[in-house]
């Protein structure tokens, strides 16, 4: 039995590809921009930021032994840029509005139930509140007609994981090589690994994966 907390791609760092043919100037520019996202609210108010940050930490808890993916900052940047999906359900407001309303409603529900804002709850209480939202058990007046369940499914569960997996830290974690351009793949068959692809540690092959991952460039 393998240790589930052991890294699946030991020693793999997608950023080591920065100056290899795997990345070009555009890739470097986009990734640099993403890595340099300001860690302060630009779209959110300070209290919205605090709530959003607390929600992000419960949706995708991150290990303590590495710098976290700055989810609140990425969310703030996404909302500031206001590039949406291009579609939404009829009872859902536009992306920016949905987040403002949703975060306000979460704090209001939390205050009504526990007497504290969401960020001040302990993790079990936060999870309980998010669980109620997910199951459609919140329908207080704070939601302004937006379905709490829809907000959970269509904004929280769509935006936060999407932002998490847009970050190179998450790429290294899941063995993703970044953009498949300008360099593509040499070994086209299923299950074959190119020298510049992350090596997955299978039971018994951890040391080999670690060695291979040091040369993934």
């Amino acid at each position, binding site marked *: 039995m393998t240790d589930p907390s052991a890294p699946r791609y030991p020693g793999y760092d997608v950023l080591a590809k920065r100056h290899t043919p795997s990345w070009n100037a555009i890739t470097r520019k986009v990734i640099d921009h993403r890595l340099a996202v300001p860690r302060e609210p630009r779209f959110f108010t300070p209290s919205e930021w605090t709530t959003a940050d607390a929600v992000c930490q419960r949706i995708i808890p991150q290990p303590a032994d590495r710098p976290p993916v700055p989810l609140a900052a990425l969310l703030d940047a996404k909302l500031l840029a206001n590039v949406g999906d291009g579609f939404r359900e009829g009872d859902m407001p536009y992306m920016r509005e949905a987040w403002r309303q949703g975060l306000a409603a979460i704090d209001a529900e939390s205050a009504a139930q526990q007497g504290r804002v969401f960020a001040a709850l302990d993790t079990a209480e936060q999870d309980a509140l998010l669980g109620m939202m997910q199951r459609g058990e919140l329908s207080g007046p704070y939601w302004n007609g937006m379905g709490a369940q829809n907000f959970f499914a269509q904004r929280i569960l769509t935006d936060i994981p999407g932002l998490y997996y847009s970050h190179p830290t998450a790429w290294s974690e899941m063995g993703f090589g970044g953009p498949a351009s*300008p360099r*593509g793949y*040499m*070994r086209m*068959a299923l299950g*074959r690994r190119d*020298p510049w692809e992350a090596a997955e540690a299978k039971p018994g092959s951890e040391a080999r994966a670690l060695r291979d991952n040091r040369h993934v460039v």
Partner: protein
Amino acid sequence: MQTVARYRPSPALPPIHHSPPARAAARPAVRATPAAMPVPGDIATVRAARRLNRAAGMIATSVLTDSAMEHYRGEFHNRAMWTPIVTAALSLAVSVHGHTDRRTGAHRGRDLVYAAAGLTGLIGTGFHLYNITKKPGGLCWQNLFYAAPIGAPAALSLSGLMGFLSERVRANRPGSSPIVCGFSAGRAVAALTSASLLGTVSEAGLLHFRGAYHNPFMVLPVSLPLVAAALLANAATGKSRVRRRLTRWWLRATALMGFGGVAFHAYGVSRSMGGWRNWRQNAFNGPPLPAPPSFSGLALAGLAALGLLEDHPDD
């Protein structure tokens, strides 16, 4: 010259075969049997045999590089994928040995390696055919284009064949009319080279068709060698007392085309995204750099056949 004349035995004598121990044993007798002694000056059969060694070596170089690259790409997931690398390297080594060897008589070690190369090519064709048929769709055009290349292992057989022919030519006693497997050596080599060219043309045709002949020069390897094969077939069956200048020049052009093909393929690699800077992908995904010199090797064999026909007219 006088010496050569003195050595001319009757064609009915059996072929010479020497291996290091056999040579050592024969050493005291060398002076008594002049046929086994190195003859001063240039012996036509040895010259032709060395040409064929060079042809075999050229094809082996192409196969060695091509199979090493393509099988590396296939991650050597089957251990048998090392076989062509070993046998092609050996074939190249004994070809170099044959090129430097000015003695008459077949060499057992070279014969063994060339036979192994020929056999490996045949078995490899079987493996590649198996790879094609086990893919969804089985033996269909799609798999012929994208699965293991059906024609590639045959090139190793051709290296072995040219080496085998070289040894058979060399086994003839100097001064006699060289015979290969009961046929006039020149005609046999010309006929087999002609057939080999046709096989190689069909492989280039298949893969260049896959490449949609997007560059007009892609037509060259399916036209030039085709004419060369026809000219060689004509030489194999026609009169031997004619100077075949067109055939000679056409074969030289085919040999040049083989080297030019490497340049064209290198250009093809450079056209892929990232170009040569991204060689670790593009050299493998692009047109195969080492493949075209197979044509050069066969053209060299064709030239050796012409030399044999001119040195030893049989009609």
